[in-house]
C-alpha cells in the first residue's frame, strides 16, 4: 500500500523545484525558474537534456544494461529509426535525433533505470504504487521555489486527484480538504481564481469544478455559486462567439472548452445573463451561440486546430475544440458541420511518431507524454463522429475501429514516460510532474477502453443529451501489450473524470435549478 498522508502531518514533496513544469497549454502559470538554465551559453546551443548525443564520446558512455539487442517481443517498428531520412540537418532534426536517441534504450527495454518486470511484449509493468505515492505527495507542501505555481493551485488539486482516481484510489477521502482549499479561491462575482484574491479564470474554474466532481457529494456541489458563475461566464463571452479566460484576459479555445464543461456539468442556464454586454451586442441570445462557428475558424490549413484563429495547429487545442463540439451536440453532427474531416484526420494521425510511439503536439515538434491525452483524447471523439448515430442498446455499435496505434502509445507511456522514483513525464531525461502524471495516465486509460455512446442519456435535457450518453468498456484482445494488472479506471472522454462523477454532479445540479 502507498503511504497515506493524513492528519496535520506535513512534509516536503521530494521533487526539486525546477522540475514541475507543465507545458502551459491549458494551465495558467509558467513557472519562473524554468528555462533559466536554457539561456544562451556559449558553445552549448541546447539545454543539456536535449543536447544531441555524439556517438563515441568517451565522456558520455552508453548506459545500457546490455548491447543493442532489444528484449524479445518488441517489433522492429519500435526499435528502428524511420526508413527515410533527409541529409539536410537543421535544429528540428537535431532535437528529433537527440530525442530518438534518448528513447531507444527505453523502447528496447534496456535502460538501467527501468523498473519492474517486463512482459512477453517487452513492455515494463506500470509502477502503480510508485505513481500513487508520487501523487499523494504532490498534494502536500511545496518549497518556496514553487511560488510560480501560486496561480495554479486548483490544477495541482485536479491533476493529483484525477491521477489517483485513474490508479484506483478513492479521491473522496480528500473531500473536506478540497472544499477547504477551494472555498477561498471562489470570487463573489463568480468563478474561481488560481488562489485567494486572484481574479476568476476559466482554467482555474474548470480545475476547481472537476475537483469538486471528483470528491462528489452535496457539500462539494453546493460550494459553487452557480448563479454568479453563470453571470461571470456571460461577461467572458465575446462578440465572435468564444470566451476569454478572464475578464480582461486572452480569448482562446481553452476558454471555449472550459466554459462548455462548466455550463454542462453545472446545468447553468443557457440564456445570456443581463450584463453579457459584448455577446448581446453581437446578437447572441445564449452562452453557446456562435461557439461552434468560433471553433470552426480555429481549424488551420494543416487540418489541426489552433488556440485562436489563424495560429498553428496544436494538439492540446484540438482536444479542447473537439470536446467542446461534442458537448454542444452529437459529435456525428457537430464535428462534420464545423470541421473539414479529411484534413483533421490526416493531421491528427500524423501526430504519432515511430519508433517513439507517442504523440507530438504540432508538425515537426517532439513527442511529449502529455499529448497521450490531448491528442489521444481526440481519437474517441472523432471515431465516434465517424461511427455516426449511436445505437439504442448498451453494446458498442459497429465502428470504424481504432484509427491510431494503441500499441505504440502504450509502449511509449509504459516504456518511456515512467519515472524511476514514481510519477510520469514528458519524455526520458525530463523530470515527472503532476500535470504529466495526470495526462499520461489519462492517455493510457483511453487506450484501454472503447468509448461509445448510446441513445439514452443520463440527462433529460436535450441540449447536452449527447455529452451525457457516453460509456466505456475495456478493450479485450490478444494484442494488448500491457498486463491485466495495469488496467486503469475509465474516464469520461469529454469531462476527464469518471462517468459516474460527471453524472452525479449534473443530476444534482438539475435537481436544483439556478434561479435567474
Amino acid at each position, binding site marked *: 500500500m502507498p503511504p497515506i498522508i493524513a492528519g496535520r502531518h506535513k512534509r516536503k514533496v521530494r521533487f526539486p523545484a525546477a522540475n514541475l513544469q507543465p507545458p502551459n497549454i491549458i494551465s495558467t*502559470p*509558467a*513557472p*519562473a525558474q524554468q*528555462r533559466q538554465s*536554457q539561456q*544562451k551559453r556559449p558553445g552549448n546551443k541546447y539545454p543539456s537534456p536535449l543536447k544531441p548525443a555524439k556517438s563515441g564520446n568517451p565522456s558520455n558512455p552508453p548506459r545500457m544494461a546490455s548491447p543493442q539487442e532489444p528484449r524479445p517481443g518488441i517489433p522492429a*517498428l519500435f526499435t528502428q529509426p524511420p*526508413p*527515410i531520412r*533527409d541529409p*539536410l540537418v*537543421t535544429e528540428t*532534426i537535431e532535437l528529433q535525433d537527440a530525442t530518438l536517441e534518448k528513447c531507444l534504450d527505453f523502447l528496447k527495454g534496456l535502460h538501467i533505470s527501468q523498473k519492474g518486470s517486463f512482459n512477453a511484449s517487452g513492455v515494463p509493468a506500470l509502477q502503480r504504487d510508485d505513481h500513487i505515492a508520487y501523487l499523494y505527495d504532490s*498534494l502536500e507542501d*511545496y*518549497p518556496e521555489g514553487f*511560488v510560480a*505555481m*501560486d496561480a495554479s*493551485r486548483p490544477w495541482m488539486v485536479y491533476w*493529483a486527484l484525477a491521477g489517483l482516481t485513474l490508479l484506483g484510489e478513492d479521491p473522496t477521502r480528500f473531500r*473536506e*480538504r478540497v*472544499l*477547504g482549499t477551494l*472555498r*477561498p479561491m471562489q470570487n463573489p462575482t463568480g468563478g474561481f481564481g488560481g488562489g*485567494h*484574491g486572484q*481574479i476568476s479564470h476559466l482554467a482555474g474554474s474548470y480545475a476547481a469544478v472537476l475537483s469538486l466532481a471528483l470528491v462528489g457529494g452535496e457539500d462539494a456541489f453546493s460550494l459553487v455559486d452557480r448563479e454568479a458563475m453563470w453571470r461571470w461566464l456571460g461577461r467572458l463571452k465575446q462578440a465572435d462567439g468564444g470566451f476569454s479566460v*478572464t475578464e*480582461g*484576459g*486572452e480569448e482562446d479555445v481553452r476558454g471555449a472548452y472550459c466554459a462548455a464543461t462548466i455550463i454542462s456539468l453545472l446545468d447553468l442556464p443557457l440564456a445570456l445573463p443581463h450584463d453579457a454586454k459584448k455577446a448581446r451586442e453581437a446578437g447572441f441570445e445564449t452562452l453557446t451561440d456562435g461557439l461552434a462557428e*468560433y471553433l*470552426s*475558424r480555429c*481549424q*488551420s*490549413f*494543416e487540418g489541426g486546430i489552433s488556440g485562436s484563429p*489563424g*495560429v498553428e*495547429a496544436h494538439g492540446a487545442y484540438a482536444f479542447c475544440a473537439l470536446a467542446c463540439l461534442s458537448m454542444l451536440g452529437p459529435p456525428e453532427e457537430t464535428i462534420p458541420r*464545423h*470541421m*473539414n*474531416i479529411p484534413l483533421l*484526420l490526416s493531421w491528427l494521425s500524423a501526430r504519432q511518431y515511430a519508433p517513439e*510511439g507517442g504523440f507530438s503536439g*504540432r*508538425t*515537426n*515538434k517532439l513527442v511529449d507524454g502529455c499529448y497521450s491525452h490531448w491528442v489521444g483524447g481526440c481519437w474517441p471523439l472523432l471515431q465516434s463522429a465517424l461511427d455516426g448515430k449511436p445505437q439504442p442498446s448498451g453494446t458498442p455499435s459497429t465502428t*470504424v*475501429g*481504432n484509427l*491510431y*496505434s494503441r500499441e505504440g502509445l502504450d509502449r511509449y507511456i509504459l516504456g518511456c514516460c515512467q519515472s524511476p522514483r514514481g510519477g510520469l513525464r514528458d519524455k526520458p531525461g525530463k523530470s515527472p510532474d503532476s500535470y504529466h502524471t495526470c495526462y499520461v495516465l489519462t492517455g493510457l486509460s483511453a487506450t484501454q477502453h472503447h468509448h461509445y455512446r448510446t441513445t439514452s442519456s443520463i440527462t433529460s435535457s436535450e441540449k447536452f443529451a449527447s455529452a451525457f450518453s457516453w460509456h466505456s468498456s475495456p478493450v479485450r484482445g490478444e494484442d494488448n501489450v500491457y498486463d491485466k494488472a495495469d488496467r486503469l479506471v475509465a474516464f469520461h472522454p469529454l469531462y476527464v473524470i469518471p462517468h459516474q462523477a460527471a453524472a452525479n454532479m449534473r443530476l444534482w445540479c438539475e435537481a436544483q435549478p439556478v434561479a435567474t
Partner: protein
Amino acid sequence: MAESYANDPEWANITPIELDDGSESGAMPLATIAYPTEYLEATSYLRAVMAANEMSERALKLTKDVISMNPAHYTVWIYRAKILLALDKDILEELNWLNGVSLKYLKNYQIWHHRQVLISSKTHFPTMPPKEPDFLMEMFAQDSKNYHVWTYRHWLVRHFKLWDSPRELEDVEALIKADVRNNSAWNHRYMLRFGPRDDVPDAGMVNAGNADISPEEKGRLPVVDEDSVDAELKYAQEQILRAPENRSSWWYARGVLRAAGRGLGEWEEFVGRFVDGNVVKSSHAVEWLADVYGEGEKGKAVEMLTMLKEKYDPIRKNYWDYRIQQLGEVA
C-alpha cells in the same frame, strides 16, 4: 524588496488582506506552497489595493514587485495593464522593460497578452512600434517555434494590417531558411498569403465559421491571384527539394493548391521524382500520389497507401487502412 510594506509610510493607510488558505475550515489545505515572506506580504497588499481598485503609482510599483517574484501571476498583469492605461504612463518604457522580462521567462504567456493589451491602444499606437519585428526575431532566436510569440505576431499582423508588409515575409523566409522544418513559420507564411483579410473575421482558413458554407470549402479563396499562387508553389518546391521528408513544406503546398481551387494532379510529375520504384525519398510524395490516383486510378491509390502502411509510415497503419477502405466505399 529589501524593505517591508508594513514599515513603509507610503503604505501606512492600507490594511493588508492576509492570505486565506482555507485552513480555518479545520481541514488541511492541499498543494500548499511555503511562500517566501516577501511574497506573502506583497500579495496581501495586492489583494487590498485591488479590492479598492486603486489606480496609483504605488500600486504600479507593487505590481512590478509581485511580477519579479512570480511572473506567472496572471491577476497582477491584468491589474498592471489597467493602471498603466489609467495613469497614462509611458508605454514604450513599459515595452522596454517587458522585452527583458520576456527574454528571461520564455514560456510565460501572461507577458504576451499584456503586450497585446498595451499595443492595442490606438491612441498610443496608431501604427506598429517600429522595433517590434526586431524584438520578435530576438525571441525566435531563443525559440523559433514559441507558440505565444507566434500567436502575438499573428495578432500584430491582423491589428496593423501587415499582410503585405515586406518585413513579415522577410522574417518568415529567414526562419525557413535557417530551419526548413519550422512549421510555425510556414503557418505564418500561409496566413500572410492566404489568410482572411480585415473584411472578414479571423480564421485559420478563409470560408470558415460560416454555417452556410461546407467545411469542404474551407481555405478556398473567392478570388485567386494566380501569379502569387504560382510563386508560392515554386517556393514550396524549392523547399521540398532541400528536405523531401519534411511535412511542413508539402502541407503548405497542399494549402496553396486548396486556396487556388487547383487539384493535386498538377504536381504529379514533380512528386513522381520522389517515388521511383523501390527508391522512395519522401513518404509525403507517396501520400500525394495516393490522393492524385484516388480520383480515378483507385488500384494505384491503394498501392501507394499500402506502401505507406507497410513500409514508410507503418505506425499509422490503422489510418492508412481506413483510407483504403474509404476508396472502396467511394468506388
